[in-house]
C-alpha cells in the first residue's frame, strides 16, 4: 500500500507546510509565534474530533470536554500539588481517557442528531462540574499560574520558541498516529459505518464496539491537546470546555473538511488566525466568522480540502 495517498499537490502542499512550520519560527515575531503554537494545539484537537466526526460520521458537541478535563487536571496537579510535568501529563491523559471510556458507553449506541444531543449534554455535565465545583476547579475564576513545563533534562520549555517546537513535534506524532489509525482496517471500518451503519452490521461488524472505540480514541487525542493548552496558556477556565468551545472544535472540522485529518488541522489554523487577526481590526469579528461559516456550508461543504481539490482540478484519486 502506498505510504501516503493523495495527489502530487496535496503531498507537495504538505511538504511546503512542514518546511514552513519548521523554518518560520526564528524569523517570526514572538506574538505570531504564540499564535502559530495555538494553531498547532487546536489542530490536534480538530484532528482528534475528525476521527469521530469525519471518519465515523458521529458529530459531537461535547468534544471540548476532553480538552478541558485534561487541561484542568494539569492545572490542579501543578498549582495545588506541585506535581511535575510527567505526572501532570499522565494524570490529565488518564482522567480524560477514563471519562471517554465511561461516556462512550452512553453514546455509542446512537448516531446523527441523537449523538449530537447526548454529547452536548455530556459536555455540559463536565462544564457544570468545572463551573460549580469551586473548591476543586476555582469555578468561574479558573486556575491561573500554571508553571511552565520542566522535562528534567536541560531543555528550556519556558522559551516560547522551544515550546513551539515541542508542540510541533507532538502535533506531527499525533498526525502520523491518527493517519495510520484511519488508514488501518479498523479505520476503514469506521468509514464504512459512516457511510452506512446498517450495511456494516449486516456484514457482521460490531458497529457498537467500533463507534465506542472511535469515541475513546478521539477523546484520548483530544486530551493531549488539552494538556498542551494548559501549559501554553498558563490558565484554565470553564470557558475552555463549554458549549462554545465544543462548537468551535466542531466548526474547525467542518470548515477544514471532515474526514481528511489535514483539513481539520487547517481549519483549526484558519479559525485561530482569523480570531486573532480580525479582532485586531474590528470588534465584529464574530459576524465575519459567522459569514464565513455560512458561505462555507453553502458553497464548499467539504471545507478547505474541497476548495483545494476544486482549485487544483486534477484532484486526487481517493
Amino acid at each position: 500500500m502506498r505510504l501516503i495517498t493523495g495527489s502530487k499537490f496535496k503531498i507537495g502542499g504538505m511538504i511546503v507546510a512542514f518546511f514552513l512550520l519548521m523554518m518560520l519560527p526564528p524569523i517570526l515575531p514572538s506574538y505570531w509565534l504564540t499564535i502559530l503554537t495555538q494553531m498547532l494545539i487546536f489542530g490536534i484537537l480538530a484532528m482528534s474530533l475528525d476521527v469521530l466526526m469525519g471518519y465515523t460520521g458521529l458529530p459531537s458537541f461535547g468534544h471540548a470536554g476532553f480538552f478541558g478535563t485534561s487541561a484542568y487536571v494539569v492545572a490542579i496537579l501543578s498549582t495545588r500539588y506541585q506535581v511535575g510535568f510527567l505526572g501532570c501529563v499522565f494524570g490529565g491523559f488518564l482522567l480524560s481517557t477514563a471519562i471517554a471510556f465511561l461516556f462512550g458507553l452512553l453514546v455509542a449506541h446512537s448516531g446523527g442528531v441523537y449523538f449530537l444531543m447526548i454529547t452536548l449534554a455530556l459536555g455540559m455535565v463536565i462544564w457544570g462540574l468545572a463551573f460549580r465545583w469551586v473548591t476543586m476547579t476555582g469555578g468561574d475564576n479558573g486556575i491561573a499560574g500554571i508553571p511552565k513545563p520542566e522535562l528534567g533534562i536541560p531543555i528550556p520549555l519556558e522559551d516560547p520558541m522551544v515550546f513551539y517546537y515541542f508542540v510541533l513535534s507532538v502535533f506531527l506524532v499525533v498526525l502520523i498516529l491518527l493517519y495510520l489509525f484511519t488508514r488501518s482496517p479498523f479505520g476503514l471500518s469506521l468509514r464504512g459505518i459512516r457511510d452506512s451503519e446498517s450495511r456494516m452490521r449486516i456484514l457482521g461488524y460490531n458497529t457498537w464496539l467500533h463507534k465506542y472505540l472511535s469515541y475513546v480514541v478521539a477523546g484520548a487525542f483530544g486530551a493531549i491537546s488539552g494538556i498542551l493548552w494548559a501549559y501554553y496558556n498558563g490558565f484554565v477556565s470553564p470557558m475552555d470546555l463549554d458549549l462554545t468551545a465544543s462548537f468551535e472544535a466542531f466548526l474547525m472540522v467542518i470548515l477544514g473538511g471532515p474526514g481528511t485529518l489535514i483539513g481539520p488541522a487547517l481549519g483549526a489554523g484558519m479559525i485561530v488566525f482569523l480570531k486573532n487577526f480580525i479582532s485586531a481590526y474590528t470588534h465584529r469579528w464574530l459576524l465575519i466568522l459567522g459569514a464565513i461559516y455560512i458561505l462555507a456550508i453553502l458553497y464548499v461543504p467539504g471545507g478547505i480540502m474541497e476548495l483545494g481539490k476544486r482549485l487544483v482540478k486534477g484532484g486526487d484519486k481517493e
Partner: protein
Amino acid sequence: MKKLFLVSFIGMLVIGIAAMPTSVLAQEKGPIKIGFFAPLTGHAAQTGKDMLSGLQVYLKEQGSQVTGRKIELISEDTEAKPAVALTKVRKLVEKDGVHVLIGGLMASTGYALMPYVDSKKIPAIYAIMASDDLTQRHRGKWMVRTGWTSSQPSHPFGEYAYKELGYRKVATIGYDYAFGWEVIGGFQRTFEEAGGKIIQKLWTPVGTMDYGPYLGQINKEADAVFALFFGAGALQFVKQYKDYGLKDKIPLTGGGTTTDEHVLPSMGDEAIGVMTTLHYSAAIDTPVNQKFAQAFRKFAGKSASYYGEGPYTGGKWIIEAIKALKGKAEDREKFLSALKNLKIADAPRGPIELDSFGNPVQNIYIRKVGKVGGELQNTVIKVYPKVSQFWKYNPDEYIKQPLYTRDYPPLKP
C-alpha cells in the same frame, strides 16, 4: 491554475504573517502606547464600553499627549472571558508593544492575567476589578489597583446600618460568585460586630432575571434587605422587589452596583429611597466631579457611572506617573514605582492614595436614590473619608482571616 491553490494559500499565509506590523522598538520620543482591555461584546459589553468611554474622556481632556509625546490608545475586547483576555493582552504586550495596560472588568480576568503580567514585567492598572484578594493574599507585583475592593464600601455600611439606620436583623441576597460573596461578606462582618444579625443569606446565579422564587423566600422578620446585583439583573431586582410588595415593608439597601448610574436612568420610582454604598456617585457635589460627569455625558451620551470614573481616574494615574518620570516611560521598574507612589487629590471621586498592599485608600459614600430635576440620582448622604480595604482592622490580622466566600462569614444560629 493547478498550482494556483497551493501557491496562493502558502503565499497568503506567509504574506499575511510578514505584513503584520511587528512591535515597534520603544523609543523615547515615540508615542506612549496604552493597552486597554475590557468586554466590548457579550453580556458585559455596555459596561466595558462605559469603561472605555471614561478613559477616552480623560485622554481627550489631555489632548492625547503627555510631556510632548503622543498617546496611542489600543483597545481590545475580552468578551468577559479570561482566556480571551489573556490572548488579547498577549497581543497588546507582544505585538503592539504597549507601555502599560489598563482595564479588566471580571474578577476571573484579574486573577488570570496576574501571572502573565508579572512574567512580562508590565504595569497593569486594575481600575475596576474589585476582587479582594488581588491586593490581599494573592498580590501581584506588577498590578496597580486604582479602583477598589469589593468589601471596601461594605465595611462602613455595616456600621452605618446598625448605628444610624437602626437595623438589627438583615437578610442578604446577591449573585452567587466572588463579587457577591465579598460585598455581602464585608457588610455581614461589620454589621454583626456592631451588634446586628444577618438572619438569611440568599444567593442567585449571576445574570438571573426572574427573582420571583427568591423574593418569596425573604424572611419577613428582616428590618432591611442588603442586595448585591449589577447591570440588567439589578434593574429587574429593584423592580420586582417593588412588584412583590416588599418595598414598603422591608427597606432595601445594597452594594453600590445595585443602583449604579449604569442602570439607574432605566429604573423608575421603585428605586427611590434605596440606600447603597460605593466609592463613587455621579452626584458627588464637587467641581471636579461635575466637570467629569458633564464631559462623560457629552462624550458617551449617558450618565457617568463608576464604570466610567474608574478608567478616567486610571488614565489620570498613568499620565501623572509619566509626568513624574518626565516622559521616560520605557524603564518599566521606574514606571511601576512611580505608579505605586502616586497620590491624587482631585479625582472625580475625591482624594486617593495607595496603601502598602497596593489598594486605594479613599472616600466611601453612603448614597440614597432620590429624584432631582426629574432624574434619579445617588444622592450622597454621608462620607466616610480615608477608608482602606482593611477598614479599621490591622492588615496582617485581617489577612490571616479567610477570604469572604459563600459560607464565610457563616450564618449565626
